[in-house]
Each structure stands twice: as C-alpha cells, then as structure tokens.
C-alpha cells in the first residue's frame, strides 16, 4: 500500500461528484430525468424516495455499475475531480478503486475474512504479506471490527452474522482506500442493533471518505446525513441540507413523503 500506490486520476475536490443533466434509460423506459446535483466532499449525502424512484440507479451510475445492465443508456455527465467518468480513456478499475460500493445485502465472498479484505489490494498488485496484513488490520479497524475479528481472520466470512458480514463488506470496500463510498440501502437486511453500528461507523468514516447512501429509512437519513436528496419517479424533487428537508421542505411532495403519506 505504501510502495505500490496507483496514481489517482480522480482526486476528489470540494465537490466530490458533480452530476449534470443526467438522463438514464432502460430500453425505452426513462428511469432518471434530468438530474443535476453536486455532492460535497467529506459529507454524508442521503438519497431518499419511494421504490422505483431512481435513487439506486443514480447511485450505481457513480461507479458505473450500470454498465453491467443490458439496454441501459446514460446521458449527461458525472464529474469526479473535474473528469467525466463516462468520458473517453477512463479506466474502470481506477474509477471503482476510488469509488467503493456496499450493497443492499451483505455479499462477502465465500472465503476467509482475510481473503475477503485482501481481494482488492491483491487485484492492484500488492503481494507482500506484511503489507496485506497491515491493510487487513487497518481496514477492519476503520470498520470498527478489528477486536471482534482479529482472532478469526482465517474463518469463513459466511460464518459471520449478517451485521458482521455487512461491516466486513464495508471493510473490504475500504481496503483499496476509496475516496467515495456508495452505500445502497446497506442496512435494509439487518436488525436494529447492527443498523445502529453501521450508522455510527458512517459518522466516523465521513472525515476521510465521502459517503453517498441510498436508504428507504427516513429516520436513518435524518440521523446520519448532512444533505438529503428526495427522488420521485426518476426526478430529483428536492436537494438540500438534511435539516431543511426534514424540518422545512420547500416542495409539497417532499413534505408528503417525509410525513409518511405515501411511499
């Protein structure tokens, strides 16, 4: 990690991600309609909205996971560090190293805890045992689970509880030192206690990593995020500080949603 550092092409500036005029289509269906938003560095930004509103779709654009979806067409620009990530000559590896992702359901690989965390670093050419071990320790510490797992590094990751698995996935994402971490409803499959731990973790991580979190849980967004964007049927209805969204939203739709009248 010290000797083999890959030159970061996406050096995050004060605006971590800048999205302009984003339209996205799945075949003939338009899933995102003219989205414009800037995500600030060092903050937690939450995307909220009812099912099918496009929030997860937008999130997956930021590390280009939508490339995997057949028939998906994206217009507009996503700039990270001043570069359009959909532009020519962008290396997906470098992009995804800088923009990590945690999924809805914990998805550790069916190997040991250690191998889960070293998968990323090995991919980037780190072979030295000592360096790898240091990365494992560092990542697990940052994910606040070093004490729980330090004696079980060679145990299968599948033997962990759901909450532990999800935090392991966060540690795995941190192992390649991303500047931005995308979280796609990371707690929707977890119990309240595990959820609490992950929320705490997010608050600790945000100093070094810009976090964008998609959540169904409005209380979660209110608790942990600095800014909140409210999406509805593919449109960004309102985007402001979390405090404002939840206390004094500008748009009627936002108010209806946060007061639980639909969704």
């Amino acid at each position, binding site marked *: 990690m010290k000797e083999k550092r*890959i*030159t970061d*092409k996406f050096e995050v500036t004060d605006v971590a991600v800048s999205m302009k005029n984003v339209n996205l289509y*799945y075949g003939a269906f338009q*899933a995102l309609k003219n989205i414009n938003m800037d995500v600030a560095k060092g903050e937690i930004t939450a995307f909220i909205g*009812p*099912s*099918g*509103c*496009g929030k*997860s*779709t937008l999130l997956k654009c930021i*590390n280009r*996971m939508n490339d*995997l*979806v*057949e028939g998906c067409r994206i217009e507009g620009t996503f700039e990270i560090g001043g570069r359009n990530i959909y532009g020519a*000559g962008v*290396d*997906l*590896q*470098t*992009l*995804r*190293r800088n923009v*990590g*992702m945690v*999924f*809805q*359901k914990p*998805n*550790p*690989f*069916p*190997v040991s805890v250690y191998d889960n965390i070293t*998968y*990323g670093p090995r*991919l*980037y050419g780190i072979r030295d045992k000592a360096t790898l071990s240091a990365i494992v320790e560092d990542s697990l510490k940052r994910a606040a689970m070093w004490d729980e797992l330090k004696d079980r590094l060679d145990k299968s990751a599948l033997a962990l509880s759901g909450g532990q698995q999800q935090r392991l*996935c966060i540690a*795995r*994402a941190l192992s*390649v030192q991303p500047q931005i971490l995308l979280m*796609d409803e990371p707690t929707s499959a977890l119990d309240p206690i595990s959820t609490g731990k992950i929320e705490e973790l997010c608050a600790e991580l945000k100093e070094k990593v810009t976090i964008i979190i998609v959540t169904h849980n409005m209380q979660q967004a209110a608790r942990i995020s600095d800014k909140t964007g409210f999406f*509805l*049927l593919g449109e960004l209805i309102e985007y402001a500080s979390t405090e404002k969204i939840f206390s004094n939203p500008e748009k*009627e*739709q936002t108010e209806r949603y946060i007061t639980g009248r*639909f969704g």
Partner: protein
Amino acid sequence: MKQGFNLSKIKEGVAKAVFALAACFAVLSVAAIIGYLLYAGIPAFRETGVGNFLFSTTWAPGYDGPASEKFGILPMIVGSTIATGGALLIGGTLGVAVAVFIVYFCPAKFKMPLVQTVSVLAGIPSVIYGYFGLKQIVPALAAISPNGNGTGVLAVSLVLGIMILPTVASLTKDALEAVPAAYYEGALALGLTKEQSVFKVLVPSAKSGISTALGLGIGRAVGETMAVIMVAGNTVQFPKGLFDGFMTLTGNIVMDMSYASGVHRSALVATGFVLLLFILVLNGILYAVKGKGRKERRKFRFSIKNAGDKGASKVGNALAGFYNRCADGAAEIAQKVKMTALKATDKISCATNAAVTAVLGKGTDKEGKPIYKKAGGGYIVLKVLCAVGTLIMVASVAYLIGFIVVKGTQAFIETGFVNFMFGKGGAGKNSLAPAFVSTGALIGISLAISLPIGVCAAIYLVEYAKSGSRIVKVIRLFTDTLSGIPSIVFGLFGVIVFNDALGLGYSLLSGGLTLSVMILPTVVRAVEESLLNVPLSYREASYALGAGKIHTIGKIVLPCALKGILTATVLSVGRIVSESAALLLTAGSVKNMPRGITSPGSSFAVMMYMYASEGLYMNEAYATALVLIVIVIAINAVIFAIGPKKEKKIERKKNNG
C-alpha cells in the same frame, strides 16, 4: 497506466473470443457428425438408391462378389421400431409409475434411497444389462417360449425397458416436481382425495414434461447397441412373434463394422446416418414441445407485464401531476398482483373443474340439478400400481446387482483376485491390468480435451452471452442434440474422422477423441448449472472493487463453481467407463497391454463384452462386470456426496430501481 488499460482490454477480448469459440464447439461437432456420416454414406446411397436402401428387405453384403451385394435396411428399421416400442411399453410405464410414487406417495425416508436407485440404474453399463439379459432373462424366457428360443422381441423389450426406466423416471420426477403446489391445494380444497388430485390434476399438468421424458427414453432405446445385440438373436428378418430373433439398426452397424469394406462399409455408415436423422427429428419434436410450453409461460408473463404497463399509461395520460403519478406506480403494482392472481386462479380452476367433472360425473337429476356423487376410490388402484412398479424396479436392481456380485465374487475366487486384476496376462492368461491402463488413458485423453472446452463454453454461456439471446438458444439446442446422439453414431464418426481420415487407426487416442466429443454436453451442462448457482452479488462485489470480468471469473466465479466442475468430471468418468459401442469401433478390442496412446486398447466395458461374446471366459466376464458395478456405485456415491445441496435459485440479471 494507459498501456495497462489497453493490455487488460486486450486480455478481456482474447478471453471472450476463446470462450465463444469453445461454446461453438458443440455446434461444430453436430455439424461435423452430420456432414461426415452423410459424406461417407453417399456411395451406398448412390449404389443402392435411397428408396431401395430404406425399403428393400435384403441385406446381403458381397459374399459372392460386389455384383450380388444388396443393402436394404427395412428389416432393421422395423426391428429398431419394435424394440423401441416394447421398451417404451415396459420401461416408459414403469418409469412414470416410479416417478409418481417417488414424488407423491413415497414415505420420506425411502425417497432418497429410491432416487439413488434410479441413478445407479442409469449408470450401469449397457454391456452388463446385455450380459444379465443373456444369462438370466433369455434362459427364463426360453423355458416358456413355444419355439424354445429365449432371444428375440420379448427379451429385448425387457432389457431395454429396464434400461430406459431411469431416464423416464428421473425426467418425469423433475416434471412432476415443477407442478405448482397451488394446483394440489386447489384440488384438495374442492374435496378431492390425495389420489384423485394426483392422477386427475397433477400428473396431467406435467403432461409436456412427461412426454419429453418418454421421448428421451425412445432416443435411448433406439440408440442402444451392446445390450441389444446380446439378446436380440440378430437374424435379419421381420419378427413374427415375441420369441423371434431380429436385428436393429445399431446391431447391424456394430456387428459388421469390424470387417466391412467398400460399399458395405458405406452402407453401415448410411445406416448410422438414418439412425442419426431419426434422433435429430425426435430431438426437433421434443424441442418444439418444450419450446411451446416455455413460450406459453413467457406469453403469460408478458401479458401480465403489458396489462400492468397499459393500465399505468392510461392513468398517466388521463391525469397529469404528482398524485396521479404516484397512483400510477401503485396501480401498476396492484394491476400486476391482480393479474398474476387472476391468471393463477384461472389455471387452477380450469384444472380443478376438469377434475371435479371427472371425479363426480356429469349426472343431473330430474330437475336438471347436478347430482354430486361421493367420489369413488378407483384411484387407489393406480396408487397401488405405482407402488408395484417401484417394487419391480427395486427388485430388478437388486436382482441384477446381486447376480453380478455373487457371480463376480465366485469368479474372482476361482480365477484368483490378484492374478486376474493385476496379473501380467498374455498367452492364454487373462488379466484386467490392460483394461486399467486403457480405461485410465481414455479418461485422461477425453477429460483433457473436453473439460477445458466444456468449462470455457459454460463460461461463455453464463458470463458473456446475453441470457435468452438467440446465440445461447442455438448453442443450447446443439448441446442438447449432441447429448442425444447414440454412442454408436459417435463411434462411426470416430472411425471416419479419427481412425481413417487422420490415420490414427484403432487406437486409444482415437477412442479418447471420440469420447471427448461425446461427453462434452455432460460437462457443459453440469458446469453451466454450477456457474448459474454462483450468486450475482459475488460478481457485483468484485466488479465494484474494480476487478475486470476475467479476473472476477478466475478468482471468484470459478472457485465457487468448483463443485460443479468436479461433478462434471465424475459424471464424465462414469460415461466413459460404461461406454462400449463407440470404443469397440474406434479403440479396438484387443486384450493386450497398450504400448502407448496410439496403440489399441480395451476399456473395462469393452473387455467385458469380449469375454462375454467369445463365450469362453464366463468367469472373467463376471469378474469384470463386478469391477464395473463397483465403479458405477462408487461414482454415484461421490456425486451424491459432492452433489449440489438444494440451493435457492438465485435470480440473475436483476436490477434494483
């Protein structure tokens, strides 16, 4: 950095091309088999005329010079048809009965043992069936036969019947298990008994699956060679009774091929071509039947979707604005749910209506009101018959294995176990040592070729091709076709291409190459299935860390699918070990120790056939049979041990809004 990027892109491209090429291999193989058989059969067709060849009744290879040669295969066509019909009557009925019993009536603790019995039955080499028929069924039949002849139509029907039973049973079982549980509940809710629900609602709903099972049973029966020639009597004539000898298409090929030349040889290849055509047509029909079922299901799914979308768009057009767009989404969901429910209940009510009428009768009283009679217990009889069918199967397996084990053990005691298994052999002394070496070499050669190709093909189908795209359908169709081709046809293909055209002659290499084409579909399918079982979320996690496709496949997907690859290997070994017809034609039938992969050699199954057919070495034949049975049972045990535990099907290509 730039360079690295290009390099990885090139690597990905090359890998994709390699996988795609491997995937095309099945298509190429089928094309090559058809092409070469036709090509090598043309002289016979030209000499005899296609009509004459198919419909004349005299088969007389040139005993008195080429002028008197006559090649008419009508007796063989009739023979194959009769054998298949008899087998279907016995094996088809029993197979369906066994499946119904296993799925619906079997006490839970007997279920796994029965399923295992079926798969052991499927794995037993055809030479053993043939030998069992020759030694047990034929003498028993001779005792009751009016002409004192045990071989012939009845013997073949019985032996082939037992052989196709596992094919029919296991596929029927799959079809029955796929019938939605709601049908059963619906039937019960109308007051049908369990037996009535099973025979009036559930079994009829699995009709297309059962006909596919029977179709594949027909394919197996038509293509069977070694077992048939041991009990058919092999006289070229139209059989007039159950105890008359006859000849099948496959028997004709394998019996003459070793010495035929010129037009005679071409006529044998042409016979193989006719057999191949029959199998291709059969596969075509099965594919159409299956496709129809699939299409209907798809249509059903589409109609739900369209109905939902349409409803949604109407609402959306009529009322603009936010509320309505919300309502829109809700309506779509509601509509979908409703449609699904409606369709499902529709299907159930159709099925149950039929059931009710069938069970309760259509009788009405004087005022025209229906009379509801208490349902009769006739279906109990059917249930008992299913149980009896299962008992017959279990008894047959027990008898067959018991017979081989007892006789084989005796034989080993008489010949001396160590001597016979590992002795030096040669000059009047028999030994299985050459068979160990030959079988090992054949396994090695064919796995070395078809495992890499099969794994790459499966990777292409699962990881690269769009699911449901035309290319996947074509490749899958050809893979299925390849797996349905009888081994004797592979044997002919091997003779024409590897023995003759490539000049390999009778050799282990030629046999191994032939086998590798033969086992390819087994490998592709087993690996494909295990790749599909690797959760999509593993791949996503890997991509999200920046890994490329080939890295993800190599480091995550393949290691997870290792079990499947292992299963494919073991299944292939089973297929190779029990194969005889194709090897007899390509690798020869010598008893000597092979000197290398270019020298001929006999596997266990071929060796056993030689011992059995020469009539001099019954002990050796029994002992070899015992070795084969032990291998088959061991293979089944291994597959059972590593086999996929019932995992939930993971939905692929799912995307979250």
